[in-house]
């Protein structure tokens, strides 16, 4: 039920994540970060998240792009639950109607 490589990946993920949780407390609590370092660290999560979903923005099905457009619009004004539900519903509907 547990694949060895999956287990190794999971344990390494856990280790780096725990490092980020205690690292700020241990390493940064008595230090002032440069404005540049702060800007890079603040931008990092968004840069990674948008990169991971970037393929959705260049999908070759019009229905997928339409669903994404609705999802982006929802994400700017609604909370998690309605955005996820409306994103799924609009994409499913667009695929049904446009193929």
């Amino acid at each position, binding site marked *: 039920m547990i694949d060895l490589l999956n287990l190794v990946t999971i344990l390494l993920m*856990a280790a780096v994540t725990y490092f980020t949780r*205690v690292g*700020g407390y241990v390493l940064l609590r008595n230090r002032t970060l440069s404005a540049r370092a702060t800007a890079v660290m603040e931008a*990092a999560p*968004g840069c990674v998240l948008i990169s991971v979903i970037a393929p959705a923005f260049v999908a070759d099905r019009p229905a997928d792009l339409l669903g994404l457009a609705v999802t982006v619009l929802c994400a700017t004004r609604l909370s998690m639950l309605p955005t996820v539900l409306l994103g*799924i519903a609009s994409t499913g509907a667009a695929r049904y109607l446009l193929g």
Partner: protein
Amino acid sequence: MTIIQAPALAANAGATTGSEFRRGIAACMPVLLGIVPYGLVLGAQAARKSLSGLEVPLMTGLNFAGGSEFAAIQLWSSPPHILLIVAVTLLVNSRHLLMGAALAPYLRHLSKRKAFASLFFMCDESWAMSLADSKERAATGTSLPAFSLPYYMGASLAVYVAWVAFTTAGALLGPVMGDIDALGFDMAFPAVFLVLMRGMWTTAAAARPWLVSLVVAAVTHLVLPGAWFIAAGAASGLAAAYYLAGDA
């Protein structure tokens, strides 16, 4: 995940550990509602990448950082690209470094052991609520420490239990639900990521690196096979952030 307001409640001397713990749980109830579908979707997608009903809670229980888990599952293959997944996990969770640094001044009254143990459970929600709560308590001039450990643990553990439970449920129910992509369920990922990014949004100027990442990652995806688009997008965005911070 979303930043939410701590409930207005002045520090009171009659508060017990139990009542503070319950106050923490109550404060994050609205967050728990959002976690249910989010956890189910993550678990179901993980099951489609053939992670087992044991591996999913192992990941969500030991890692306990939803954004990185969504990114990891998106990238998961058999066998997994270990270094890619670990690097993405580190980058997505690098914000914890800043969060821990911001919370550190309020943790001085805790022993190292307690601080290290409680930081394991620090998530966006419990961090945001506890920081807001600590600032509020500090402003009331209480003799108690501004940071309430039981309040923080109540909020953190409620999110933890819900996250592990619902991701596991998603992993077990996912295969029963069959192929859900035709119904548009694959859009759940972009939806979750976009809402997470909305929560991180400060100014349009601060978001310029994100645009760089998006364009570079999209173009890379069109011209190169495999998962290179993530590394290319993330690296170009960080370079842009470094460069743009110069003229701030």
